[in-house]
């Protein structure tokens, strides 16, 4: 197990290094700079160059890269060129929106998907099973922003039960913050549930056909008991994988949802900073997200090792 963990850790660090180089090159390769965006079309090249110089953007690329990495390693994520705000502060402020949004969306997705997916698997071939499979298939095809817009129109504009968008900070009104999150979380959770239902259904179907489940039934367990006591552990393996992948997908999903509902979350901040070519803000924020996503994958791998001894012994 120790070798397995060590191998995964080396991969984790290597992936982070490669990602840091890729992020740096991609944002620089996208062209444009923050000075030109801020000054607009009326600025002379001299004025743009002077402002870019004051931001340190005219230094050699490798100097900028190592400067950034060295600062990151010392815990300094850098500062915004335009406002001189600390990136760490910028990110922290937005996590109070993004974490509840993403986490609640995921939990809602799982709460719906596990029982519904299991039910669909147990009733495969019946009308109810077919309907559930069809509904989840349609759900997969619905873009998350479309769901968000329709929910906003129904519950916000038409019924007036919930805000159509906008954000009330937790410090101003926790209830207001929760109300701001209901529709975005519903949008994310429902679409995620549709995706997960299909995976849960497949995993449970697969387990139901395994010999060990038949053996469990043979020793006197009911179908439900066999599924819960024997099947669940085995079905959880592919589910853990897909949940790991969905967490990465959540970041993309929240960009759209934060835009549709005008939430000041991390994804939207990053998008705005990409457009403005705030390179340090983008680099550091993306790096944090990548560390998080690769970290989740590492966790998934380690969970695999724990759940299935065959995995940790394999090369």
């Amino acid at each position, binding site marked *: 197990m120790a070798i397995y963990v060590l191998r995964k850790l080396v991969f984790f660090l290597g992936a982070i290094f490669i990602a840091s180089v890729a992020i740096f090159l991609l944002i620089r390769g996208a062209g*444009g700079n923050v000075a030109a965006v*801020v000054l607009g079309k*009326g600025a002379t090249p001299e004025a743009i160059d002077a402002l870019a110089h004051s931001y340190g953007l005219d230094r050699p690329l490798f100097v900028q890269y190592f400067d950034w990495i060295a600062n990151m390693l010392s815990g300094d994520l850098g500062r915004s060129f335009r406002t001189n705000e600390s990136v760490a502060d910028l990110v922290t402020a937005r996590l109070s929106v993004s974490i509840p949004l993403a986490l609640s969306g995921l939990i809602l997705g799982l709460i719906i998907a596990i029982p519904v997916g299991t039910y669909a698997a147990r009733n495969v071939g019946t009308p109810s099973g077919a309907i559930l499979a069809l509904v989840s298939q349609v759900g997969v095809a619905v873009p998350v922003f479309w769901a968000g817009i329709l929910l906003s129109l129904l519950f916000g504009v038409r019924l007036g039960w919930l805000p*159509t968008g906008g954000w009330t900070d937790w410090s101003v009104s926790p209830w207001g913050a929760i109300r701001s999150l209901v529709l975005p979380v519903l949008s994310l959770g429902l679409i995620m549930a549709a995706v997960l239902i299909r995976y849960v259904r497949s995993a449970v179907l697969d387990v139901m056909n395994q010999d060990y489940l038949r053996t469990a039934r043979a020793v006197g367990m009911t179908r439900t008991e066999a599924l819960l006591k024997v099947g669940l552990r085995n079905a959880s393996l592919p589910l853990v994988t897909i949940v790991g992948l969905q967490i990465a997908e959540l970041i993309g999903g929240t960009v759209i949802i934060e835009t549709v509902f*005008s939430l000041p979350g991390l994804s939207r901040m990053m998008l*705005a900073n990409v457009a403005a070519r*705030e390179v340090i803000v983008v680099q550091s924020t993306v790096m944090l997200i990548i560390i998080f996503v690769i970290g989740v994958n590492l966790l998934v791998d380690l969970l695999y090792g724990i759940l299935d001894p065959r995995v940790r012994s394999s090369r």
Partner: protein
Amino acid sequence: MQGTRNSITKRLGLLTAAATLFAGALGGLATTAEAASPRAAENKMILVARQDPGTLDFVKSNLTAMRLWIPANIVEPLVYFNKDGSVEPGVAESWTISDDKLTYTFKIRDTTFSNGAPVTAEDVLYSLNTMKASPVVDYAAAYEAVTAIEKVDDHTVKVTLSRPSQNFWRGMGAISGLIQPEANAANIATNPIGTGPYKLANYTTNSAFEFTANPTYWGKKPAVENVTVRIVTDGTAGLNALEAGEVDSLPVITIDLWEQLSKRGLDKKYTLVTYPQVGEPTYAVLNQKLDKELRETIARTLDRQSYNDAFGAAWGAENTCTFALPNQVWYSPENAETCPFPYDMEGAMATIAEKGYASTPLEYASLSDVPDLSLPADIMVPAMQGAGFNVNRNAIDLARYSQLIFQGRPPQFDVTIMSGDANPVQWACPDPTKAGWSTYCSADYTKALADADVALTDEAYTAEMKKAADILRKDAVIIPLIAKKGVGLFNPDLKGFEEPRVNVAIELNKLHW
């Protein structure tokens, strides 16, 4: 220039519009938003902004998203220019102008900034010198003739010019004349301070501005004590919020929403205002290196009405061949006298065939993430291709566009489309080797502007500006299409909107329930 908008927002805007119509078809969306706003009783209002400026540093930034909210509300200029041309006190309570128009003496008001610090002559010196050195050329241009900015006493500042300058005087009522405390220089990007009727209580990027009435304001106390400007980048979401009664106004409705606004009947349910100040001319830019007759031929393929029709709101824009907005005295709507190259597709096709212009490859640079500009490009490129031009469209985002076009020397385009400030001085070009991003450089045009600047009377100024406008349109490099107006939608109970006096700034203290 339009603020930065990303392509996701653009696509979402189109799709949300579709969703609105879809939902409307399913069950109708009739709401009762005409009811009085719940904010009225609380002495509050919530407005919607479409863009997040990212920075509030008005010295370095010329983004519309910043200029809409900070000047006049938070930071005031020395003077205010009214719509009728009269001038009112601002931070300067009075002023004298020498007969030769070379010396301006400003008496500074005995007041405080919103943080309680007194406004001093030193603060005015600092502010004017800072704007004089601004990297934003439009702001610094007001100071071209300024030779000295001096303190006379604790409340008097004297500015000396080398020649009369209309640009200087008008600039003192615009962003170039904004007065800020030097002590707050480090915080200007997130929390600018001034003498205005409001102070900024909080600014959260991509979320909201929170304004509260400035208790030390020298003028009449604002009628609405607390103002929130919610940043809603998706336009349809903004309109939905208005219909749901969550917000009280969208004072600036961008062109991509005009059609939706009419189709949803919002222009009838709410108070619709149109005003030129926050408007922008939309104009084609042809690289001056292209043959003049070729440029004229391109100009003849531009059917102004089709651009106007595309935005689906006849009240939102006027067709024009003049680089100006309707509130500028040299403005003229499209007519036979002021359009040297009127729409004439057949004539253009004949010229293209005769001159062999189809063999000239043309690079059309278009902004992919600004709906106001990608839509006109969608019309212009096929029209040019239909006429016989060999046009390749290069759709790029704002940052890349800034690099290729604004920074590029020479700029990498043959044809592009832009909208932005109706400031004709931006096309002045004293040195042909330093032609700006537009590539346009004309000694005659520059001289006409210079003559206008030194004009001693308003009449002489207007005459020279008209002359400059005529030179510009005949050169067929900057080709105006439509003059977009500022368009705003207000809760019917929210009254008092007045047209902006300081650049495009929406003056919040004029609004009341």
